[in-house]
């Protein structure tokens, strides 16, 4: 291929990549052309040609910079936000509208829609059964939006509006403290001292969903009782944040007797694709399955208390 043909074909390639918005690939081809031309002293109007290609390359550079700087999670329209909520919130049976509201707002936050998520959490804070979870998630959103002062004001306001019990308030300010620390901020004594003592390490039973890793199965080590010394592994069939659903065959009578609703399980291995974690959990429900392929077996929901 002579030089002219080679240049022509490289330019054609560059244009095609540009059309497909393969900007870096296009840039590379323009650079190749410039290098070839620079080595040719005999081509007429060589400098003008080089300048023309450089101009094309410069405009690509502008586009590349613009692309690199574009935001990963820009706020999208309300219509799209509603679609995101609908498509990406796990539909769970038997949960309240309020809890569903929390789950939907968490979905929005995961897609970086912090402003809208915050609006929804701020509304949910006024509903007693989800107030603590709403407040903690709202705090995270405020920090994502770099609005720590507004965060402090909001939490104080909610407390004054009697949204929380003193215990909840203590737990929320404790959460806030560590969330601020994680963001490299000092909360200082901005929050009024809670009126009640707060035992550290309190369980976050709220669905602070995205902190919980995916658990594929669990292993229970029985330290006492009729199954003392035994280790039982059960697959997780469904997970929503810290709530794990398991299916136990009806034939496992002894096991089912030990895992009645409300039972605390102290020594649990949580198996995730990344690692095994030790922790504790509590049985939230234990119900017989009435229809479908697993009819007769039992569906257990267990809540991770600590991990």
């Amino acid at each position, binding site marked *: 291929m002579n030089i002219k043909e080679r240049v022509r074909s490289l330019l054609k390639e560059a244009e095609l990549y540009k059309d497909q918005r*393969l900007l870096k690939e296009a840039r590379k081809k323009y650079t190749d052309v410039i290098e070839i031309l620079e080595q040719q002293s005999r081509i007429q109007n060589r400098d003008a040609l080089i300048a023309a290609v450089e101009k094309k390359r410069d405009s690509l550079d502008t586009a590349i910079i613009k*692309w690199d700087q*574009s935001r990963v999670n820009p706020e999208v329209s309300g219509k799209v936000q509603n679609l*995101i909520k609908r498509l990406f919130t*796990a539909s769970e049976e038997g949960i309240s509208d309020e809890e569903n509201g929390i789950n939907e707002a968490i979905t929005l936050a995961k897609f970086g829609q912090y402003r809208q998520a915050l609006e929804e959490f701020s509304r949910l804070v006024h509903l007693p059964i989800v107030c603590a979870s709403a407040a903690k998630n709202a705090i995270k959103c405020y920090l994502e939006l770099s609005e720590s002062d507004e965060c402090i004001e909001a939490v104080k306001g909610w407390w004054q509006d009697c949204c929380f019990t003193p215990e909840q308030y203590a737990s929320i300010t404790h959460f806030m403290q560590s969330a601020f620390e994680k963001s490299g901020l000092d909360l200082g004594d901005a929050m009024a001292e809670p009126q009640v003592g707060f035992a550290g390490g309190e369980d976050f039973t709220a669905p602070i969903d995205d902190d919980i890793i995916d658990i594929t199965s669990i292993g229970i080590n029985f330290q006492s009782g009729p199954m003392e010394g035994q280790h039982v592994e059960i697959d997780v069939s469904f997970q929503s944040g810290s709530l794990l659903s398991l299916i136990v065959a009806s034939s496992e009578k002894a096991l089912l007797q030990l895992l009645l609703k409300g039972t605390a399980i102290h020594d649990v291995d949580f198996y995730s694709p990344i690692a095994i974690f030790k922790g504790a959990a509590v049985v939230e429900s234990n119900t017989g399955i009435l229809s479908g392929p697993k009819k007769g077996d039992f569906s257990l929901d267990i809540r991770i208390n600590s991990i």
Partner: protein
Amino acid sequence: MGVAHLSQRGKFMAIFNIQKREIECKIVYYGPGRCGKTTNLEYVFKAFKRQVTGEMVSVDTEGDSTLFFDFLPMGLGKINGCDVRVQIFTVPGQQKYSSTRKLVLKGLDGVVFVADSLAVRREKNLISLKDLQQNLKEYGQSITRIPLVLQYNKRDLADEGVPIMSVEQMERDLNRQLKVTSFEASATKGTGVGKTLQECLKLTLISLHKELQWSK
């Protein structure tokens, strides 16, 4: 309790409502940025009007790269006495959208991996396939077990005089271990697009049929 326990959209399970005899599964188009995932779906939207049950929604950027996802709802009618609905998504392929990509992948039942035939995109194909494997693993799924088909897209560019990879090379690069069905395609022209999706749907439904033991 009308919905079997297995029915909930957990990490990787189709929604199966036994009482209503409805099944809803999720297919995801995966692949490197600009390989033609959105173009595939646009073609499906136009060419399979009878199966399409709603609008196609694209959440994209100014430069028309996918930002969050494209979404297309389809209905396949009754299969084995069950009404089968399909949600099709494309992920954003560009590197910088890795966290959204992972969110969109969650709960999938089948994957179409679209690879770019352009020689300059060879490495990006490999990285993206690896990324798919890793993300599936983090959801407790395995790329060797999930219903998967490969598509070698942009075959039409062979006529444009730009360097594209041979199918043999792409097979060696991407399919040596997986050994799944692969298709040549041109999403802009529409060739191979329907076949790719049909094969993926077929594999997905076979797999769900086994898993959910759904029958008449």
